[in-house]
């Protein structure tokens, strides 16, 4: 925290050390839950503060700092590198780790004597440290080591309440998905090392000599591997289950930053690979926009507030991949300006999403904490009962809906701008492609507003729909504080976009350097004074109007909502989440994302009490992956006959093996 560590990787080492030491201490604290709780929270918070102060300066410092500890066990060095790109990802990691730790102080409650607290904080600190190491890793071993640790620790955090069946299933799904992804990553790094001759990232510059097919092999293997972690459609299937299952501060971290480490990996790989063919860029962009539309459509039909937010994460990841794909395509086709705009947009959206999604998950967590319910149909009227939390949630929703003057708008604005730019100087089909993307992006934007108003309107407004919601209490000051940090940053980025854009210029150059000569800041888009001026006028107008109204404020009489003559409108008459999205389902969405319902109303003289149930399963999971894996397992099962328990058959195996090998041995030259 002192300037000694500023601008220096030692600060990060210190932060890592504090994190790991804190984790071990929590474990040593054993069943003394209170002690472990405080230890864990304090160490995590302290470490992330140190990390922030150490990473912030590195954002703008060109070049990289190395540190390498020799590691005989591996035969490789435990080498870390800090460069602007790494710093770019370190900032949100440490920020959210800090907020999460702060938040958990009041959010988590442990029985006085249990190991749970120690374990939770051990894995929490490990997660923080491993995320940082993933970003800092300087060779394949360190990267994969940290990557696996990250997956495992997050798995154990997700399964914090492992007694619940759903939580276990969610955790298992997550573990499987992340391991399949990791397999592809292992392949990528080993294949790269085979070409480059060593696992050191420094030597991966040799990859630039790769022929195009080998490049594509690496690129798409990495896309699958990292996409599975990032939640890229259709590999997102673990995400909507894992986030509701996890404790909210964990969901905030996983959704806010952990999945972003996958994006880091992809970007880092792109700095080594030779330019990617244009069509690959198109593929990525299309995947991205498809994922965005799919995610937001699914989010509109969910009734679990955290599940809905998880799908909105899928949407945002889709937008980021759209930006990346656009960047690759424009780079390959020579639209310099558009390429830069797309990349900047994607990078900024990475930051933005970690801010407002962290805020939203923390806010949702407070709602769950106050009411004990995640179902929208059991919430309502919370804005009156917990005004601060509610307002922060509303703030985050506005930010994620890309409404000016908040941060979400800036990044989407950049994406639009790059699309328009490309569409402007492209011709014919290509231009048409960009326009199409712009239109789909607009559609997504509209749907986001729909989803967010739905979430807030049903969860926070109107009358409480359950007793639990009715006696909800405002969350404690700690929770509010933890939430207001990202909120403040959302506003800052939105009102003064120059700041983050300058911050991004460092990593931007790192990413662009391989492919064209480093031009200076003109790469950055033109945010004239006009921007801030228009906002200022807007704000002035608002102030003026409010002033007028306060001046003309009469004693407003408070009565019940006018309900068409009903004297006591009850919450059961209120518009539900299902009906809110019903209209969109019927008119806008394709049938594959609409929930599947089952009603037991039969025509009868004396109709029995009828029920109606809906389930909102992920089509990618239920239609593609589960059948696929089921079939594979069936195939594997067919081989069980080989082990039928008959001794003589086993002897026969030995006999056959001997004969075959003998034949081979004799025939072999």
């Amino acid at each position, binding site marked *: 925290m002192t300037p000694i560590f500023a601008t220096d990787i030692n600060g990060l080492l210190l932060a890592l050390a504090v994190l790991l030491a804190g984790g071990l201490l929590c474990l040593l604290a054993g069943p003394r839950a209170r002690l472990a709780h405080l230890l864990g929270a304090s160490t995590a918070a302290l470490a992330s503060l140190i990390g922030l102060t150490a990473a912030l300066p590195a954002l703008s410092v060109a070049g990289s700092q190395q540190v390498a500890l020799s590691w005989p066990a591996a035969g490789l060095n435990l080498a870390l590198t800090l460069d602007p790109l790494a710093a770019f990802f370190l900032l949100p990691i440490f920020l959210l780790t800090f907020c999460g730790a702060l938040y958990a102080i009041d959010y988590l409650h442990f029985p006085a004597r249990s190991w749970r607290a120690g374990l939770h904080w051990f894995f929490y600190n490990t997660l923080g440290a491993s995320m940082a190491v993933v970003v800092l890793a300087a060779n394949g071993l360190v990267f994969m080591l940290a990557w696996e640790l990250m997956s495992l620790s997050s798995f154990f955090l997700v399964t914090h309440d492992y007694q619940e069946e759903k939580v276990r299933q969610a955790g298992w799904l997550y573990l499987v998905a992340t391991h399949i992804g990791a397999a592809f990553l292992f392949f990528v790094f080993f294949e790269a090392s085979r070409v480059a001759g060593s696992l050191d990232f420094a030597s991966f510059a040799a990859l630039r000599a790769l022929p195009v097919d080998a490049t594509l092999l690496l690129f798409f293997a990495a896309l699958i591997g990292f996409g599975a972690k990032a939640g890229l459609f259709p590999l997102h299937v673990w995400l909507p289950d894992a986030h509701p299952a996890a404790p909210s501060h964990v969901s905030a971290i996983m959704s806010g930053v952990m999945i972003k480490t996958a994006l880091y990996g992809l970007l880092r790989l792109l700095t080594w690979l030779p330019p990617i063919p244009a069509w690959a860029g198109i593929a990525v962009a299309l995947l991205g926009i498809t994922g965005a539309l799919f995610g937001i459509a699914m989010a509109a039909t969910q009734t679990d507030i955290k599940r809905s937010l998880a799908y909105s994460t899928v949407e945002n990841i889709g937008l980021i991949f759209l930006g990346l794909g656009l960047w690759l395509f424009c780079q390959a086709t020579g639209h310099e300006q558009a390429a830069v705009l797309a990349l900047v947009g994607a990078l900024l959206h990475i930051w933005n999403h970690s801010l407002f999604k962290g805020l939203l998950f923390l806010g949702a967590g407070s709602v769950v904490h106050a009411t004990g319910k995640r179902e929208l149909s059991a919430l309502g009227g919370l804005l009156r009962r917990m005004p601060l939390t509610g307002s922060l949630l509303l703030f985050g929703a506005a930010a994620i809906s890309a409404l000016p003057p908040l941060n979400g708008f800036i990044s989407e604005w950049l994406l639009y701008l790059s699309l328009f730019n490309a569409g402007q100087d492209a011709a014919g089909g290509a231009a048409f492609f960009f326009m199409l993307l712009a239109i789909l992006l607009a559609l997504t934007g509209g749907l986001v507003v729909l989803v967010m108003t739905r979430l807030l309107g049903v969860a926070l407004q109107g009358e409480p729909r359950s007793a639990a919601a009715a006696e909800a209490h405002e969350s404690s000051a700690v929770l509010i504080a933890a939430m207001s940090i990202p909120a403040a940053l959302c506003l800052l980025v939105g009102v003064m976009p120059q700041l983050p854009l300058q911050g991004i210029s460092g990593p931007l150059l790192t990413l662009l350097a391989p492919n064209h000569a480093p031009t200076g800041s003109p790469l950055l888009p033109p945010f004239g004074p006009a921007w801030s001026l228009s906002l200022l006028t807007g704000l002035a107008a608002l102030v003026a109007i409010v002033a007028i109204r306060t001046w003309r404020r009469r004693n407003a009489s408070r009565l019940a909502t006018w309900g068409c003559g009903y004297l006591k409108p009850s919450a059961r008459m209120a518009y539900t989440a299902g009906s809110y999205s019903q209209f969109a389902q019927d008119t806008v969405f394709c049938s594959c994302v609409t929930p599947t319902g089952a009603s037991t109303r039969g025509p009868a003289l004396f109709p029995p009490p009828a029920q109606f149930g809906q389930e909102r399963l992920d089509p990618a999971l239920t239609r593609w992956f589960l059948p696929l894996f089921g079939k594979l397992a069936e195939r594997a099962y067919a081989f069980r006959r080989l082990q039928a*328990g008959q001794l*003589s058959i086993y*002897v026969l195996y030995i*006999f056959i093996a001997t004969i075959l090998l*003998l034949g081979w041995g004799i025939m072999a030259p």
Partner: protein
Amino acid sequence: MNTPPNLILLFVILFNFFILGTSRLNTCIRSVALQGALLSLLPLFLHTLTFHTYLLAVGAFVLKGLLMPWLLFRAIRQVKIRREVEPRIGYIPTLLLGALTTAGAFIFGDRLPLLPEHLHSLFIPAALSTLAAGFLMLITRRKAIAQVLGYLMFENGIFIFGTLLAETMPFLVEMGVLLDMLVAIFVMGIVMHHINREFSTLNTEQLSLLRE
């Protein structure tokens, strides 16, 4: 071609077929014992008559020709079972397979270069075909005892080959082998006893509780 060893080996091969073909358990045991006894003569014809050779021959004779059958008969007496080998596949197919493997043994034997003194001898084919016959017994017979017999023929085959090298190989090895076989048969006998106690049969097809 018609040196004593070759004649013995010829008999041995014929015994293989006989064992594969017969249905009586006792006959099987006796013929396996006889086979072993025949084999125990081989060293005497093959090598210079040293103490080592004698010891090997006598040891083999006692173990293969006397001890083993005694053990097996005792096992049969303990477990009162039908004196019949119940083959998994019929006798004719078994014999055909036996013929096939014997042919294969001859062909394979030709591909291996022999020392001049061993040329035109039946050692390699005989050893391999006995081995294969043992395998066939193990694969096709149901009764545990029959499988033990298969294992014995197996060992006989190895012994045939071993005698070629009786001088090369140190004393220790054959003795080790023989003693070891002895122990193996002992243990197998004990296990068979327990099997019979648990399953009240020696039909190993019953022993398929452990399966996927």
